[in-house]
Structures are given as C-alpha cells and as structure tokens.
C-alpha cells in the first residue's frame, strides 16, 4: 500500500465523518404536532447527535398553503413534511411526494403496525403510499353527565338510533333548558361519514361517481334529521371554535358534542378546565365509527436528505416511546398499534370522571373503516354545507337542496 492510497482512504473517512457532522434536517409542521416534535427531539439527539432537526412551524392553514406552493414550484421544500388529515388526500393525489412503498423506503411491511384506516387515508387512487401516520382522532360522543342526570336521560338511549338521540334531546331541553347540540349541522356531519357501504367515500364512491343527491338515503336522512333538530329548537346554533362554543362548554348549556378524542385535551387544558369530572364519552349513535382528525409525515420528492428524513419519520411513527411522548405531550392519539397497548391507555381519565375512555377510543379506532377519498371532497363538502344551511335557515326543501348540491358538484368535479 502506498502513501497516496492511504491519503485517499483517510480523506474519504474524514469526508464521510464531516458529512455526518453537518446534517441539518428540516421538518415543517403545524400545532400541536410541532409541540410533540419538540418533546421528542431530545431523544433523537441522543441517538443521532450529528443530525440537527430544524423545525419550521407555522399555523395550520399557513403551513398547508406554504407546502402547496412549495410542492407546486419544487422550491423551499422541507426534508420532512407534516400533513394533516384535511390535506393528506389532496397531497396524495399530487405528484410531489415520494412513494413510500418503493425503495429506499420499502414501507409495505410497516403498514400493518398502524390503525388500519390510516393507511387508506395516505394512499392515492393509483396506490402510492405517500405518508406515514403518526396520530389519529377517533370520533367520539362527549356528553355532560350532570345535565343528562338532571334530565333523567340514560346516555345509552342516545346511541341506539338518531331518533332516540333527538327524543332524548327533547327531554333534556324540557327538563333542564340545555340544548342538545351546538349546531344541527353536527348531526349531518356524523351521519354522512358513518356506516358507509363498502367502496363508498363520503361524497364519491371508489369509481369516482358522485353519491350526493336526492336519491341517496344517507344524505336525505342526514339533512332531514338535522332539520328535525333545528325545528325542535334543540341546537344552540353555535359554530365550532367560537367564543360561544367555549362558553357553552363552561356553562353546560349544550349537553353533547361529537368530536375527536383530542377534544378532551382541549377541554381540560383551556376550553373548560373547571368542568373536570362532569364529562363522559361513549360511542357515536347507531354504531357509527368515524375518523376525526389525524396527522402524517411525508418525504417530498425533491427533499435533500431523504435518508435522514426517513430515519426521522420512522423514529416518530414506529418508535413506541416517541408515540407515547407525543401522547403525553398533547394527547395525540398514537397511530401505532403497539403504542395503544401502553399502560397509559388503561388508566382512568380524571377529567372524564375516572372513565377508562382511551380503551373505548382504541376500540372505536379499530372498528373505523377506511373511507375512500376523492380529490373533489373539499369542493363537495363546501357545497353540501351551503345547501344544508339553506335547508336549516331558509326552510329549503331537502330533496331540492340535494338536487342543487348534486348539480353544482358535478360542474366542478371534472
């Protein structure tokens, strides 16, 4: 061996060491996922001291708009991109994210480790798997036990059928003066996304045929029952994320709320901390199981550090300790099945009066069916909501509203 070879070998070794020293991995995220990432970074740094995580956190809408623009132009993309459920199907249909089924990721064996319905959410129509799930939002039924007790209503009577739910609401209103629900539209929103037939999405089926219309029993029932709630004066006509909404939680003027399990954390931490012990949860009416939120991590095709991006994503999603750290940090419900078996899940939740709610949510998540997504879902959602308001506020005929909604969606879905 001569000196030149030695020098080259040394240089190569040095070079690779230096390269390792200098890795900065950019991760773009939104609240409260950014908080979970911050909580997990110390553990990552211990394992990979040479890879610095640079977290770019923006508000929910800003983050997704920025990512849309970055994907459109191929400029300013992070190495790891967090995506919320509201955007994941749209991002999946685009061409800017790597297919994790393929090398070097080969993520196929990992899929069975997650709550099943999340995989479908992150898979495009042409079967590319573009993001790893990190947390999920099992849909659940919150109710104020004190209000129901005062009205003498058995909570179980509210889950058998929607008709039973409304009947209980009338009793609650008569006996306590409290409203059944924040807005009649909530009833619609649960009905249209639960108990779907196989191959059906919310608005389109897996053959891209539009389901919304006056002949679709699910939509007719959703609109009709919402209207019944409104006509009986059972809804407080309050929008979500408004001051009135928080006020209703604090004062107990609204008896029930459909939401993701994560609402418990929000109620406990800032919406209505003083109502500790007054809330309980149960499954949605008519054995409806629905996904209500969730977050994912993806690798842009033009990312600079794909290898480390993938290591980081695996660390966030497949590492049980990371998943539990996120859960303890902000209540992010783990998508990883083994993390759901952590002992924290069988603990009583003091805010829910000691109920072992997480077991209920875990079972609900397991029973949630994957819903077929369509890139025109957001168009359809907007139009359906507008027509529902016409029914509720202006007394428009249900069938006519759905006929109009159908015509409008068909125009836009091209």
């Amino acid at each position, binding site marked *: 061996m001569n000196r030149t070879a030695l020098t080259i070998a040394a240089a190569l070794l040095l070079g690779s060491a230096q390269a390792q020293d200098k890795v900065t991995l950019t991760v773009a995220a939104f609240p409260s996922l950014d908080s979970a990432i911050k909580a997990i970074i110390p553990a990552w740094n211990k394992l990979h001291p040479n890879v610095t995580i640079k977290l770019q956190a923006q508000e929910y*809408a800003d983050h997704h*708009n920025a990512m*849309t*623009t970055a*994907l*459109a*132009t*191929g400029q300013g993309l992070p190495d790891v991109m967090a995506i919320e459920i509201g955007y994941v199907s*749209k*991002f999946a*249909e*685009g*061409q*800017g994210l790597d297919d994790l089924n393929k090398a070097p990721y080969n993520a196929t064996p990992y899929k069975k480790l997650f709550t099943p319905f999340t995989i479908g959410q992150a898979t495009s129509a042409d079967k590319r798997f573009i993001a790893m799930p990190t947390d999920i939002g099992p849909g659940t039924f919150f109710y104020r036990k004190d209000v129901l007790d005062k009205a003498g209503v058995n909570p179980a009577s509210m889950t058998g059928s929607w008709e039973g739910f409304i009947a209980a609401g009338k009793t609650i209103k008569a006996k306590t003066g409290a409203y059944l629900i924040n807005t009649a539209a909530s009833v619609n929103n649960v009905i249209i996304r639960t108990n779907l037939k196989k191959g059906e999405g919310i608005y389109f089926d897996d053959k891209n045929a539009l389901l919304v219309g006056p002949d679709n029993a699910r939509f007719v029932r959703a609109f009709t029952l919402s209207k019944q709630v409104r006509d009986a004066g059972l809804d407080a*006509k*309050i*929008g979500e994320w*408004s*001051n*009135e909404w928080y*006020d209703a939680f604090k004062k107990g003027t609204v008896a029930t709320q459909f939401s993701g399990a994560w609402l418990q954390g929000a109620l406990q931490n800032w919406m209505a901390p003083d109502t500790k012990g007054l809330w309980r949860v149960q499954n949605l009416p008519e054995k409806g199981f629905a996904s209500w939120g969730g977050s994912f991590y993806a690798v842009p095709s033009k990312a600079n550090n794909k290898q480390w991006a993938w290591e980081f994503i695996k660390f966030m999603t497949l590492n049980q300790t990371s998943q539990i750290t996120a859960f303890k940090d902000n209540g992010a419900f783990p998508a990883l099945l083994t993390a759901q078996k952590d002992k924290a899940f069988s603990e009583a939740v003091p805010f829910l009066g000691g109920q072992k709610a997480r077991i209920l949510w875990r079972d609900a998540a397991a029973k949630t069916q994957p819903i077929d997504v369509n*890139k*025109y879902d*957001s*168009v359809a959602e*907007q*139009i359906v*909501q*507008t027509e529902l*308001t*016409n029914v509720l*506020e*202006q007394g428009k005929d249900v069938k006519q509203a759905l006929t*109009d909604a159908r*015509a*409008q969606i068909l*125009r*836009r879905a*091209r």
Partner: protein
Amino acid sequence: MSDRFSPPRPARSRWTYARAQQRLAPYVFTSPFFILFLVFSLFPLGFSLFLAFHLWNPLDGLGNWRFVGWENFALALGARDQFWTALKNTVWIGLLSGVPQHLVALPLAFVIHQFLRRWQTGVSTVLFLPYITNAVAITIVFGMLYSENLGLLNYLLAQLGLGPVRWLAVPELVPYSVGAVVFWRYVGWNVILYLSGLQAISEDVYEAATVDGASAWQKFWFITLPLLRPMMFYAFTLTIVGNMQLFEEPFIMLGQGGGSGGAGLTSAMHIFNTAFRDLDMGYASAMSWLLFLAIFALSMVNNYLFSRDGGREP
C-alpha cells in the same frame, strides 16, 4: 423643436468605461423597481392569464398542466355557479358599505371644514384611526360586538327587551353585519379625501357667494359639490375597486366558507378557496380575470356618470 435642452450625445464611436457607466447608471438606479415589478406584478399577471386557460393542480408541480381553452371561463359564467353567488354577495356588501360611506363622509367633511376647523387635525386623526388599524384586530373586536350570547350589541338590545339577534348567523343579516365593519373602517379615509378636496377650493368663491347672499346649504349644493367632483370621482373609484376585492374582514369574521350559507363569501374569498383549498388554479385564475373585468366595467360606468352632464372631464 430645437435640440437646445437635450444633453449632448456622447460620441458613438468610442467605448470608454466612464461613458458606459454614465449611460447605464440611470438604468441601474431604476432597476430595483423594474425587477420587483417584473417579478411580483408582471409575471404573476401573465402567469395567471396563462393558467386561466389550463387545468392545473399545483401539487402536480410546474409544467403538469393541461390546456382547456375557455373551459374555466365557461365554468364560472355558467348559470348557478358559485362565482355568481360570490359576485352577488360582493356587490351587495359593497353597496351596503360603500353608499353610506360617501353619504356620511362628504357632509361630515363639509361640517369639519366649515365649523371645526380648529380641531380639524384631531378630528381627522380619530376618523382615520380605523383605516390604519390592523384588520384582524378590528374583526376580532367586531366579533365580540356581534357575538350572539356574549356580545355587546345583543346586551344593549336585551336592555330594551329585544333580541337576541344572530348577527353573523342569519344569511340575510350577514351582508349588513360585514358591511357595517367595512363602512366603519373606510369612512374616515373618505373624509380625509374630501377634506383635502375642500381645502383646494378657493375661499374667494365662498366669499363671493356670501356677498351675493347665499345660504350655507346653497353654498354646499352649488359650490362645494360641483367643485368636489374630481375628488368624488377619485374616492368613488377607490371604493369600487376596494369593495370589489373585499377579503380580510369577511374572511376573518366568518371563516373561509363565508359563514352561514356562504352569505358572506366574496369573490376574492371564493377565488382564494378555489386556488388553495380546492387546488383548481385554472378556474381560480379565470375568475380573477372575470373579477378584473367586472371592476373595470364598474369603474367605466363610474367614469361615464361623472363625465356625463358636468361638462368637465374629472
């Protein structure tokens, strides 16, 4: 025309560094504007015109678009399209806020100019404050005023035994509630415009009228109004352009969808949603150009009305 005033032309034959520098300097010094204009105005304009004739999901990346001809325009102009609802909302909110703005601002400016001259600076500062206040702060404060159960307005109504009124929830009321905010925000701006117009009117004219025995009302009607025409034209145009592009106030107050039944969904919001929520850039671009045409047409109508019988081109 003599060439006396033009600078001597440098000889064309010889190139020297000093000469080149001298000749290039003006272009270099003005280039920042032109570069910024090119990048942030001209390019987006051209690109949106290009996109208006294409079907493009931005997530597919640059280049992955499909030419569709006039399809986007046809889609927007088709009967029952949301474009029309949004345009109708925009015009209605624009009228509800714009007309009272000028009906109040003009007399108010006149009164300030005539009777409150000593406090003019103070009064106009107060009136101008809403204009320079952050839209987010304004809409949050108005959100609290309008709040159904906790709001000040409904509290006052309750004292009179009325209400509660669902200001931001009943579709018919939404344009009024939003219009009131827009009115409040821009009335001061118009007062300032009219005040500056009034200050440009010579005192001599008023003195002459006083000598002739004109009343205050006659002075307003026969002197102030006609002489303010150019300023009115300017202020009207700004109101038309501004109101047709209304976005911030309803977006923050009512949310992305424009509130109950989309009653507060303006054209600009609809375009934004189409582009960034529905990811249909072509349709959004086409609507932007249609909105531009609508604004252009309204400005032309305004121009026509002002230049019609007054004789004097504003």
